[in-house]
């Protein structure tokens, strides 16, 4: 059992938790994720690692309540226990000194973007963070990003904070104004990653995208997370989750992500009505 040590609400339906999991913290790296199962009847869901601390034996996760399991996890309080947490899973994001690295994160992709930004900064890169949110009330991790970014560009879809526009607009302006980018890392909604990768392809900038398909085991066993990269079948859990963004079939990923929408609705409705 894995105890929740602390919890915060970062934005509407977006929560941060610190979980005691020394064995996960021990070998964790930026870009990796865990799979958790809340209880005996729970499903296995992947959540990406935001922070971790080997000495103190904990990991930190940020998640958005969208389905039954994330709502249920959101109802857990410090002292409550998650039945199973396994990880770190997936390959760490390949970190090297590229020169200037631009990290483009959207919404709840920000925690992963943060972990990768920090690792790229530590590797000697000049890091430029572009993060986008729906509106002011959904802005998360601003202070965290400020501390580690050489340049921080925040945008909101509706212009309620800092500026109006999508991360794609910000990236394009940055590049058009002569901003340097030797490497781009992108994580967030699939449509955003697709558009970001189109821009960087025009500019010929090496770009990795962190993919978030459905998963069951998360260890290369089931193939639920399969994605097409460069015409080949890859498992995001074992071969990824980061792939060359210019080779990823984002449309297929978008389609596969909603495979269980009807069932997810059934489960959530049932949960919201008070059954479990």
């Amino acid at each position, binding site marked *: 059992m894995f105890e929740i040590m602390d919890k915060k609400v970062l934005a509407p339906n977006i929560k941060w938790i610190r979980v005691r999991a020394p*064995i996960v913290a021990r070998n964790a790296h930026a870009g990796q994720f865990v799979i958790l199962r809340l209880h005996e009847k*729970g499903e296995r869901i992947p959540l990406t690692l935001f922070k971790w601390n080997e000495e103190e034996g904990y990991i930190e996760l940020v998640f958005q309540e969208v389905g039954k399991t994330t709502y249920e996890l959101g109802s857990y309080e410090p002292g409550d226990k998650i039945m199973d947490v396994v990880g770190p899973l997936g390959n760490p994001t390949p970190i090297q000194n590229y020169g200037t690295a631009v990290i483009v994160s959207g919404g709840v992709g920000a925690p992963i973007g943060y972990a990768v930004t920090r690792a790229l900064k530590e590797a000697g890169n000049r890091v430029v963070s572009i993060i986008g949110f729906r509106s002011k009330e959904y802005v998360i991790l601003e202070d965290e990003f400020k501390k580690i970014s050489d340049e921080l560009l925040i945008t909101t879809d509706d212009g309620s904070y800092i500026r109006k526009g999508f991360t794609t607009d910000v990236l394009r302006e940055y590049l058009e104004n002569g901003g340097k980018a030797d490497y781009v890392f992108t994580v967030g909604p699939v449509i955003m990653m697709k558009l970001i990768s189109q821009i960087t392809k025009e500019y010929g900038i090496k770009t990795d995208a962190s993919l978030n398909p459905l998963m069951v*085991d998360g260890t290369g*066993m089931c*193939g*639920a997370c399969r994605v097409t990269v460069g015409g080949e*079948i890859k498992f995001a859990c074992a071969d990824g989750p980061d792939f060359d963004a210019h080779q990823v079939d984002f449309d297929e990923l978008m*389609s596969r992500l909603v495979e269980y929408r009807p069932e997810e609705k*059934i*489960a959530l409705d049932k949960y919201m009505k008070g059954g479990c």
Partner: protein
Amino acid sequence: MPKPLKKQRVPMPEQDPKERIHNFNEVALGYTWELALEEASRCLQCPVNHAPCIKGCPVDVNIPGFIKKIREKDIKGALEIIHETNALPCITGRVCPQEQQCEMHCVMGKVGDKINIGKLERFVADEAKKMGIYPEVYIAPNNGKKVAIIGSGPAGLTAAADLVKMGYDVTVFEALHDYGGVLIYGIPEFRLPKEIARYEVEYLKSLGVKFIKNVVVGKTLTIYDILNDYDAVFLGTGAGTPNFLNIPGVNLKGIYSANEFLTRINLMKAFKFPEYDTPIKRGKKLAVIGGGNVAMDAARSALRIGYEEVYIIYRRTKEYMTARKEEIKHAEEEGVKFMFLVSPVEFVGNEEGNVKAVVLIMNELGEPDESGRRRPKPVPGTEFGLEVDAVVFAIGQRPNKVLYQEVPELKVTKWGTLIVDEKYRTTMKGVFAGGDAVRGEATVVLAMGDGKRGARAIDEYLKGEPWPEKIEPKNF
């Protein structure tokens, strides 16, 4: 005057096919005492030294010996004889392909039906379980040496059982949230109730084996981490990565690997959604690609979650199917439809990206391939469509590379299986391996045989046998 030998074997009672396709309860119901005694009475009791059945058993169970004990109504005695070489009889009694092993060699076959050895083994194990009888086993005093077993499937559990009896401090690491490996995520409840795998694990715990779950070796802990803490390692990590055919439409929604389909149903209990949180697609027509036991498991599971028409799509003819005859028979009884000499060439989807049809092509059989089976050759112009709501790929699995992708010392074959020698030694000192991780995709009992011999080899190594300069690869 002795009674004449009964030539026909005593069949095991089974659930009616019409009923059983609506539940996940076990199909074969088990012998009663009366039936078991009748079947046991047919055994000719060949002398142990040259009983052909024993030679056919990958783990050398003294078969005439335990059958004699059944005749004497001595369940404890029978169980102890089995346990001398087989720590998991509840499991082997159910899933061993006995017809290709012990039973194939049975002398009774010359005059009538061969003895139903598997069913008798199951009877002993189940009866003992029911009566709460455990075998008396000798556990050597702790010798201070630690062995890590990676994977709690049949190979790992067997190695753990043998090593703990030899006095080692044994810890089993499992990646999933429950123990048993393929026994719990792969083989369905109606062939092997999960409660049985759990029972066997509890038994090993009672012998002193330690179990740690949620540890993915290669990720959570590296093999180097493990070697720091343990004197030897046994890799029983199985063949967990599914194969797909890279043909158009393979990533449409509704197309599963058998691993995913069965894991959702068996391990995650998707058949009880939404009581359990994991969903599975329920439609009317489903096609399973493949002709092995896993394909039968997937097809029969599909019926049980409500699919009305389930097809087995197999590229060769019936006699080449690798599934056990019993499994094929069960699938046929339950209404699974078999299509032979056909292969998928494309999947067609609807506007939402869900699979709606599979395009198949007819094959003819050509020259035998390296497996000795005649190779299917597609006949141009014979394509036709089959409407489906879901597809399951059961065309084999390969070992999971997560374990060793960052361990250059561990060498693998071109099929991705770990290279080991006759003594199950890998190319990394102190690291042994067995089961599907070295064989590709085989059976539970062959994995158990590897676990046994691997344990013996580990014992010899830890007692001082030098590690060889060069590993001579064993062919499986």
